[in-house]
């Protein structure tokens, strides 16, 4: 059952990332990978809220597996994040490469902190 929850979450999260990335790309044609940035920040926020909800007893272990491990885990990505950074650096966009890492990491952590604070306010 646990495996099914993770599989189902992953089967939703990954296409959600793909479609979000595509939608963002059709609106922003610059060098900065806003699509990956967006899904990573949103995924960190949702997982922050969910983890807080589990800590405060407002969400079950099953919800954690389905939405956390499966959906948020597959919605967010480190492999595309690092590959896009590598491509930016290789094509001479060094500033964008460095900005992508720093902004991605800080925004992701900020979103996780905001999500945890939101969960504490709601269920703490």
């Amino acid at each position, binding site marked *: 059952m646990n495996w099914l929850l993770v599989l189902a979450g992953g089967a939703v999260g990954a296409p959600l990332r793909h479609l979000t990335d595509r939608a963002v790309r059709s609106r922003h044609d610059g060098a900065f990978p806003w699509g990956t940035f967006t899904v990573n920040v949103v995924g960190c926020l949702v997982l922050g809220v969910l983890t807080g909800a589990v800590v405060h007893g407002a969400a079950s272990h099953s919800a954690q597996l389905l939405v956390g491990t499966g959906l948020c885990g597959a919605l967010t990505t480190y*492999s595309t994040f690092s590959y896009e950074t590598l491509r*930016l650096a290789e094509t001479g966009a060094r500033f964008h490469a460095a900005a992508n890492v720093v902004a991605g990491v800080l925004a992701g952590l900020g979103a996780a902190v905001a999500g945890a604070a939101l969960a504490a306010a709601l269920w703490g």
Partner: protein
Amino acid sequence: MTAPRDDRATTEPVDRDPNLGLDPDRGPDTGPGGGASAFGGGAPAVRRRDAARREAPVVAAVAAGGAAGAAARYGAALLWPTAAGAFPWTTLLVNAVGCAVMGAFMVLVTDLWAPHRLVRPFFGTGVLGGFTTFSTYAVDVQRLIEDDRAGTGLACLALTPLAALAAVWTAAATTRRALRGRR
């Protein structure tokens, strides 16, 4: 969130060369999402239906890959669980391995062989994207800081991107060298 257009004059338009697509699922033949409306010909409804018909297998391939990648990550977390307050090595290693495979895979599909149009969506976007995770990384760091483990949290915050970038760069460079050696 507008793109910094001024910088584009001094940098290569990295997203325009179909052979060097940044997005691992952006094969030259998968077509842009909303781009079809920029070109004439055919009723909008027909073009939308054609785009959806082309896109559906790609989304299905991403979903199947994402499920497999997430399950593999879950399996790794069950095999090597991280104790509360400890450094989350499993997540770091999962991410580093996923980045290394991505680096090698992308060189192979851009420099060596043009695979079927569903290979990149399935393996790059789906399996590797689903296997690696940014959200668990960020929430792990947040939890460590909240539990007065700021040192461990900040070490994880800095070490993970360093390991991920070293992995993708080393794997891409090694694969390129190996391919040049074959020729």
